[in-house]
């Protein structure tokens, strides 16, 4: 059982789980107390010991099933020696063929599920199998997979013949052997069919992108899979910032001495001021108005910024969010009604915002001033997220100036890399002098830095 556990944890590690030696020791120790035959108890014990993040539970369930249930070698152990020897002989016959696929199937028949899974996994698909079958033939991976399934199906007849001609075994045992071999082979075929190669948007990374880490890639260059990861990163940043805020609050509360309270608390120590009480400084909470361009070029960056802002909303007295392409609409009410992820989707989907149109900053700022004239006041931090590409429209910087004059500060977040800010169709040159700050916010690292500066 310990060797089985080692193989299982190796398999989990191979699939990207972080399983430390001490965690593995825990899992092995748990085996002393649960009966592996009671599958539910065994599963719960393994999950409790090996899974440390809630998000990994679903994946773990899948891998557990694949390893322990799709394999099902247990009944093999209950059979007698003759049975095992016969099954072993059939496996040996397959091995003698010298074909790598048949070797894997032979190992699978004898209970080694790992090799088969390595060859159907996502990360190293087909490895040697591919070379073996497809060498020189130019077969696609899909064809290779089909070829393997075809071979397994052919082996079913061979296995039945093999069992039927094992005359030194009683008839009943021959039938059981035949059933066992056929079942295992069918399982192997099912496993192969189950695992289509997953599609995660852009699959192949370009050569210069191979060393990429999510934190430094521009939002518009992320693959679909990476978008989800970035969302997770944004959540982590929010949590880290909250921790940093709480530490800062604790430090800052050690400000001025509170004489009255100190004297009062010293009474029980006979007037000796053991506990010096400090005044808690008033927390300054600003109001945030976030106005985001959600045209295609900027949409994802805006989403990540809003996600981060709303995760930190306790830090602000109020957050109101607006989106625009040509006209500006308030979307704050979606955030009041729905959980954040749903709100973001609804905000973009249900508004008649005019997705696909060309951005016009001047008309967007004008419509903001017309429709929401009293939203900005002297406590407001105005955040504008946009690339400034105004599609050769008149920038009419006076509108932005009117907005900036009302606000305490105006920060423009530009998800474009700085080298592209001043293209002919961009209005950044006109808007930059009006803003208190214009910062590049093209990557998760930059977004994190900005949020840190905003709240700490």
């Amino acid at each position, binding site marked *: 059982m310990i060797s089985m556990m080692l193989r299982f944890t190796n398999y989990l590690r191979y699939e990207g789980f972080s399983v430390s030696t001490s965690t593995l020791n*825990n899992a092995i120790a*748990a085996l002393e*107390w*649960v009966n592996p035959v009671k599958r539910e108890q065994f599963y719960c014990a393994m999950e*409790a010991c090996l899974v440390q993040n809630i998000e990994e539970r679903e994946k773990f369930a899948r891998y557990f099933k694949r390893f322990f249930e799709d394999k099902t070698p247990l009944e093999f152990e209950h059979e007698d020696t003759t049975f095992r020897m016969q099954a072993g002989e059939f496996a040996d016959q397959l091995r003698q063929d010298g074909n790598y696929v048949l070797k894997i199937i032979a190992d699978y028949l004898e209970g080694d599920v790992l090799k088969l899974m390595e060859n159907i996994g996502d990360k190293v698909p087909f490895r040697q199998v591919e070379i073996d079958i497809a060498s020189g033939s130019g077969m696609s991976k899909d064809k290779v997979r089909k070829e393997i399934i075809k071979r397994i199906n052919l082996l079913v007849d061979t296995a039945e013949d093999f069992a039927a001609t094992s005359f030194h075994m009683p008839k009943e045992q021959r039938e059981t052997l035949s059933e066992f071999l056929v079942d295992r082979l069918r399982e192997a075929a099912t496993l192969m069919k189950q695992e289509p190669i997953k599609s995660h948007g852009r699959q192949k990374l370009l050569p210069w992108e191979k060393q990429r880490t999510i934190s430094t890639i521009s939002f518009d260059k992320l693959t679909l899979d990476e978008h989800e990861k970035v969302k997770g990163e944004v959540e982590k940043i929010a949590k880290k910032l909250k*921790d940093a805020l709480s*530490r800062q609050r604790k430090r800052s509360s050690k400000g001025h001495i509170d004489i009255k309270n100190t004297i009062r608390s010293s009474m*029980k*120590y006979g007037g*000796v001021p053991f506990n010096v009480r400090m005044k808690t400084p008033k927390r300054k909470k600003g109001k945030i108005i976030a106005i985001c361009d959600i045209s295609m070029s900027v949409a994802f960056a805006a989403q990540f910024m809003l996600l981060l802002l709303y995760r930190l909303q306790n830090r602000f007295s109020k957050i109101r969010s607006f989106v625009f392409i040509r006209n500006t609409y308030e979307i704050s009410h979606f955030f009041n009604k729905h959980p954040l992820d749903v709100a973001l989707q609804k905000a973009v989907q249900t508004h008649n915002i005019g997705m696909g149109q060309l951005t016009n900053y001047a008309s967007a700022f004008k419509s903001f001033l017309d429709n929401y004239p009293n939203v900005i006041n002297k406590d407001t931090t105005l955040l504008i997220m946009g690339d400034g590409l105004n599609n050769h429209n008149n920038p009419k910087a006076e509108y932005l100036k009117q907005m900036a004059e009302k606000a305490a500060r105006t920060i423009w977040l530009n998800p474009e890399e700085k080298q592209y800010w001043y293209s002919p169709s961009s209005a950044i040159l006109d808007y930059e002098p009006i803003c208190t700050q214009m910062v590049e916010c093209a990557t998760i690292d930059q977004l994190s830095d900005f949020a840190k500066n905003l709240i700490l």
Partner: protein
Amino acid sequence: MELNINSVEDVTALLEGQGYISSTEISTIVYLAIKMKRPILVEGPAGVGKTELAKCLARSLDLELIQLQCYEGLDETKAIYEWEYAKQLLYTQILKEKINDVVGDAKDLDESIERLMKLEDAFFSDHFLLPRPLLKAIRCDKIPVLLIDEVDKSDPEFEAYLLEILSTNEITIPELGTQKAKEIPVVFLTSNNVRDLSDALKRRCLSLYVDFPSPELETKIVESKFPELSQKLVKQLVNAIHEIRKLEIKKLPSISETLDWASALLTLQVDEITPEDLKKTLGIIAKYKTDMDQVLEAADKILGDVA
């Protein structure tokens, strides 16, 4: 001392004896934690019975429950131990008169100090130590259940204190030395995932995720707590709660809300939940105005399928 638990089924039975209907997952992990002497980190949404699990286990085994409620700013003086300065000061005042007896015949200052230093230990002894929950748990003569509630609300620094205690079952008090646990406590840490706990802490615990229960389990829970309710009403209530959980609302109703609702319906002597009953008791299951609106909008669907 060993607790008299020999199987997962024993745990289920013990918890059921206290009115806690447990799933195989919960029972297995509690059983393992007791046998392996490991803490359990219980995570899950608010109100699914994380804290109640520890309380029921303590009651069922007749063990002392020591609870530490975590919050932002919790430090070792509130969680582990504190010196009773007031008491020390009081004793100093009382003994001031007697100081002359100790140092009166000393030849010089050095000797006086030496004599006083011999008495120093008297002021840093158990007599002046105020044990807080964690130290209390370590010093218990009988195995206690230690509940560290909402650990995610404490500061990350506090986790560092917990690491020593959870991995070695020891607490170091500089003035007194290391205090080793007399009996290793059964430790429950609960978390609502307000912030990520450190990997070091997670590694030391068995993880248990308590989610909203399946309709079957929730029906069993309601029936065990309110046997007076008709089967039909329980079924309608559980179905309604599960329909509400499908809505995109801010605060999903948990088991505690289901039970509160059942209790309210029992008090109002309702036989079948009508939209009017739902409206009257809405505050029990929905906690935000926008959530209430959504629940009312979907009232027909929520109360629809009554078998």
